[in-house]
């Protein structure tokens, strides 16, 4: 590649931390905080149900729970419970993008709680299970083994 004029300015750790909202499957990037499904129900009903429907289905936006049709059926349901391979993705996506009308408005505890609520609604965790940076990465999702790499040579070992 051609050489550039090297105009990049150093990024301080604090600035990186403010910017960096990626959560990896192994939990890297999870912030402090915690929540349970019971706490999350209040968040969900107030800020999510209008679009996603009561209990995560039947709204105008994507179905988040209640998927029953297996992936091999004629009308497969691709929901968190039936399709998503990592719990980290639920936390990551909600924190970065939801609620659609006010992204980045939830506190970390609210994100943990509503994530727990959706995992519970999908039958993955119990309603009092505490979700935090330590417990979330340990969750094994039902469809964790459901993906094949089109380019296996690119898969990290």
């Amino acid at each position, binding site marked *: 590649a051609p050489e550039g004029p090297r105009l990049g300015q150093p990024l301080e750790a604090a600035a990186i931390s403010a910017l960096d*909202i990626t959560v990896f499957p192994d939990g890297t990037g999870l912030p402090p905080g915690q929540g349970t499904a019971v706490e999350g129900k209040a968040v969900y009903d107030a800020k999510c149900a209008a679009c996603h429907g009561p209990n995560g289905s039947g709204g105008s936006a994507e179905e988040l729970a209640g998927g029953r049709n297996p992936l091999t059926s004629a009308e497969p349901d691709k929901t968190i419970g039936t399709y998503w*391979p990592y719990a980290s993705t639920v936390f990551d996506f909600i924190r*970065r*993008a939801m609620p659609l009308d006010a992204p980045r408005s939830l506190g970390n505890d609210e994100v943990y709680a509503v994530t727990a609520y959706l995992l519970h609604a999908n039958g993955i965790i119990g309603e009092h299970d505490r979700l935090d940076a330590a417990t979330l990465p340990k969750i094994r999702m039902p469809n964790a083994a459901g993906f*094949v790499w089109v*380019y296996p040579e690119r898969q990290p070992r």
Partner: protein
Amino acid sequence: KAGLAVTGAALAGTAQAVPPPPWMTRPGAPLSNYGQPSPHERAVIRWIAANADAPGNGISWTPLERLEGIVTPSGLHFERHHNGVPQIDPAVHRLAVHGRVGKALSFGIDDLLRYPMTSRLCFIECGGNSNAGWHQEPMQAPAGNIHGLASCSEWTGVPLATVLAECGLQPNAQWLIAEGADAAAMNVSIPLDKALDDALLALYQNGERLRPENGYPLRLVLPGWEGVTNVKWLHRLQLADQPAMARNETAKYTELLPSGQARQFSFVMEAKSLITRPSAGQALPGPGLHPISGLAWSGRGAIRRVEVSTDGGKTWQDAALDSPVLPKCFTRFRLSWRWDGSPAILKSRATDETGYVQPERQILVAERGRHGYFHYNAIVSWAVAADGSVSHVHA
């Protein structure tokens, strides 16, 4: 010469009977700072399908069947936004590069404009383009409303490799997580090999700065790779030893197979073609000579060959390819067809420089099932009826 003179002079008297059109007898419109299409072309638009509750969440299709050549006018480049088009102030916007780098750095747009650039014509195609093809029933819609989540522009920008070299890479930096500064903070994971190959930090589209809906002020362009990886409004690149497994590379943009397993990180848009004229919803006015014109492209390189069949795939003829034929770029193909007035089925089939041949629909469906949603690239069939009307068929 006598002939001309006689015609001209002898009939001058009657000439006054047919006055010139009004636009030849009155001064025309003034010059303008920035031109727009003719009001007579106002039907040539991107067709929008958006979420009723969220007008920035949706898609709009390039009207391929009304366009020609290989360049898509920027105003008609397809759109796919997850939460609208951010109105970014370029003076504030910065690109952060961090993670497994030697030195985390941040770049302003004015900085990047001072870097060495390169230009290339290439297509961008949404992974979900043509997904109506998976349906059992052939969708009756204009070609662009089926296949128009693909557009082609000249992109100019800084090679990503230049900026990564400035930061330095740690040995286990194998993935790059690219994130947009939109309200969806849209992010995807990109293998380092692609990032170092031909990835561009694009600042210009078709000569001028990017359009807002195409990522202004900065877009990651990954020639030949599915649209979602060409992250718009790019503001953050995080080097990592693993992919993020973001929502748009797990829950979406993965292809469920009949086995229940799903293909992940499919990236490359395989070779594809379609006839844009004549196509569904259009009509041939009658038997005779008709130009067939269409587009072919491949995410793996240049189109080597496009064949056209007018008998539903029994026989094939090589179409002519307009110059230029560039890698990972739309290629315009053409064939003159003499229609005898009997029902006919038109198909096109692309072969790229790797020898890959665009598959027939039944082959693709047999391999992938009908719930893959993404990466549909089968041969497209248009049926011409005896009355000249053209419809979409699975044949």
